[in-house]
Structure formats: C-alpha cells, structure tokens
C-alpha cells in the first residue's frame, strides 16, 4: 500500500491557479524529488501537504487514512488538524528555528509539549522528559552537531541551522518528511553538509519529499522525480530516467538550464 496518495489537488489564490489536478503516490521508504522553475507550484504543493494551505479540490491520504478531502465539510477537516499534521514533517527554506531556544531545545520543544498532554505525564514526568532529551541529543549527534547542542541559532552557521531544523522535524517521527528547497538560502560552500545529511536519511529509507533546484542531487538521492510547470505535473518517473532521458519537451527545456 502506498504511504501517501495525493489525488487531484487544486489550489488557487484569487484567480491564479497555482495547482491543477495534481496527483501522485509514494511508496514507504522512498524519496521523491519535485523539480521545476520558481512559481511552478512545488512549494504550494508541500504547504498543502502540511496543512499550511488548504487545497480547493482533491484529497490527501496517508496509510489509507483520508486526512483531507475537499468534498467533506470544513468542520470535519479542521477536527484533529494537529494530529493530522504530525504525519508530515517540514524543513523550511529559511530554517525557521526558534531564536530564543538552544539547538537542543528547538528539537525537543514540540515533543515535550505533546508529552504534557498524555495522561501519565504527571506521574512519570522526570523519566519522560529525560527520554525526550536523550532522543533530541541522539538526533543532533546524527546530524553531526554533538558540539553545538547548547548553541542558540544565531551562533550557528546556515548549514548548522538547517541541520538543527532537520533534527527538529525528525523528532516527532513523521511518516513523510518534506524539504522545501532546503539549501536555497545557504551559501554555496554550506550546501554540501546539508545535502550529505539528507542523503544519509535516504540511505536509511526515510520517506521524503524534496523540493529542490539541485538536479544532480535529486538524480542521485531520489527514487522518483516529479517535474512541475505552471501548476501541473508535466512528467513523473524514475529519477535517473527523468533527468537523463526526459520524455517531455518542457522537461528537456527546463533541464538544459542546469
């Protein structure tokens, strides 16, 4: 069974159609790259998956559970919105770390807040918080940030901040981790360290959707690639196939620019 099914998503802002009839599926443990020029709708698509935008049409299904269906009443959509969101993790282009918290606190904050809602929190408070702390440290170590846990975001380089953001998104163990142009805000010499981390996640078969402009990276890391243009999926298929031998003329034109 597909871990994610996106069916006929449409989204418009005022009269501009940003997404038109977007459908795709993803298998558990696979990595999907979405490529396309600016304004093609790739970021909007990710934002729809994370419920930062509400699609006007279509449905989103994770592990067989319909999280969103535009045909159902809005009241029902908003119910359990927080729980539904947790199926997806999001890494933003501009990191969006919380400046008043250390790297470790950034990673553990949401997990701690969620733990407080559990009925047994009061009794086992100490153990639960210690466990979360341990988990957060392990994630940051995995990101190669063992020495930076107590640093505040402004004390970290862009590449380090983005790695903290990845750890933060992983902390809640989402089914699908989304990256919105994770290296676009970085200096060229810092993109490598972030791409390396994402590559590592792909090797561990983390289910991921990566919106990116790094074509060679997309080719190497992703299993599938979707090329979008003007809000529609122009071409989708095996990553190497799409990059090396695109079938569509528009894809070919786009790729010659890289």
């Amino acid at each position, binding site marked *: 069974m597909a871990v994610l099914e996106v069916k006929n998503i449409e989204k418009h802002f005022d009269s501009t159609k940003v997404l038109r009839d977007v459908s795709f599926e993803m298998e558990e443990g696979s990595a999907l790259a979405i490529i396309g020029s600016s304004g093609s709708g790739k970021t909007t698509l990710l934002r729809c998956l*994370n*419920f*930062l935008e509400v699609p006007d049409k279509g449905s989103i299904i994770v592990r067989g559970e319909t999280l969103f269906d535009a045909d159902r009443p809005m009241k029902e959509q908003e119910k359990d919105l*927080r*729980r539904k*969101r*947790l199926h*997806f*993790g*999001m890494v*933003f282009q*501009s990191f*969006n*770390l*919380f*400046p*008043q918290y250390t790297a470790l606190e950034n990673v553990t*904050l*949401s997990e701690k*807040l*969620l733990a407080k809602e559990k009925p047994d929190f009061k009794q086992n408070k100490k153990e639960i918080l210690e466990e979360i702390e341990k988990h957060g440290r392990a994630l940051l170590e995995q990101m190669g940030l063992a020495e930076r846990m107590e640093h*505040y*975001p*402004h004390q970290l380089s862009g590449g380090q901040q983005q790695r903290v953001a990845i750890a*933060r*998104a992983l902390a*809640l163990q989402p089914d699908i981790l989304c990256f919105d142009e994770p290296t676009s805000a970085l200096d060229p010499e810092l993109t490598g360290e972030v791409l390396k981390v994402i590559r590592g996640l792909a090797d561990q078969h983390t289910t991921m959707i990566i919106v990116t402009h790094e074509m060679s990276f997309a080719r190497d890391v992703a299993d599938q690639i979707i090329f979008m243009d003007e809000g529609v999926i122009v071409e989708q298929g095996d990553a190497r196939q799409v990059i090396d031998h695109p079938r569509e003329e528009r894809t070919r034109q786009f790729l010659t620019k890289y």
Partner: protein
Amino acid sequence: MFWSVTQSLLDGLWTSFEIFIFTLLFSLPLGLVLSFGAMSRWKILRGLVQTLVWIIRGTPLMLQLIIIFYGPGLWLGHNIWNGSESGRITATVVAFSINYACYFSVIFRGGIEGVPVGQREAGEVLGMTKSQIFFKITLLQMIKRVVPPMSNEVITLVKDTSLARIIAAYELTFAGYSFMKSSGITWPLFYTGVFYLVFVGILTLLFNYIERRLDYFR
C-alpha cells in the same frame, strides 16, 4: 523647611507612584487584548478597536481625564468616584489605563506582526496549538522587539501622572507647586524635578537590564 517640603513631596510621589503602577498593571494586559482585536479576522471588531484608538490617541489625555472624572457626576447626578483622594486616584487610573492601553496596543501589534510568519508556521507543523505558539514562541520575541518603544511610553507615563492635578489629586507636581503658591518659594519646584529624574533614572536602569537579559538571542 527642607524637611517639611521633602515630606510633602514624598506624599505626592506616593500618589504619583500609585497612579503609575496601577495604570501599568491594567493597561498592559488591556493593550494586549486590544492588539488582538486590531488583528482580528472579524472586520467589525477590527473597526471598533481602530476607532477607539483613533479617538483616544486623537484627544488630549487631560480632556479624557476631566470627562471621566466629572462626566458621571453630571450625567448620573451622583459622583461615582466619591470626592475623596482615593476616588480621584481611581478615576485617574481608569482614564490613564484606557489611554495607555491604546498606545500599547499599537506597539504590541507592531511587535507581534514583526515576528516572521515562518515562526508561526514552524510551530504549526510541529503540532502546537495556537496558544502554545503564542506563549512559547511569539511572546518572547515580541517582548524583545517592544522593549525600546515601551521604555519611551513608560517614561512618558511617569510625567503624565502630573496631569492628575487637574482633578485635584495630590500628586508630585501638585505638591511642589503648592509651596510656590503658599510661600512664594521656587526651589521646591526644582526639588520636584529631582524626584522625577530619580524615578525615571531607576526605570532607565531597569529597561537597560531587561534589554541585556534578552540579548542572548537575536
């Protein structure tokens, strides 16, 4: 003479301090509520808050104080503030709280809107509730942003307490002025100024301290 002046000025300072502290106590939360109103999705509420802010910021505080103190007595036929000193102080605090809440609401709105949208979105995708996002993420970043403009307003408030003289509340300036009227001496006026300077000086140190405490993040 010096001691009796000091004694009177200390009495006046206490009244000024009461007006100051109670005004802050009420206007800070009220200002925050008004700032939410000004940012509400509900157009009518937004319009109401904007109109209130326009009226309060567009008319003199002294005029507002006069209306709030004398108005109810003339309209209702009995003075709801009763004529005592504490009634005068209460009326002053009410007028000041409304006035300062309006100014604060604009500062707070600027502070909240100045926090990047990405902060809220990051909180949302991490499954936080609206109130968790406000209290755990936005609030401290907002406070950091509003400390400098707030220090201006709070210092202005210290000196605005002297307006309470218009409804005969015995505050600091009234105290200093009364010696000039009764004994024809002017030095208590300068002495009064020193009281204000010390008051504001302490506040300045306090604000510097808060700014330094919030310097650990950017």
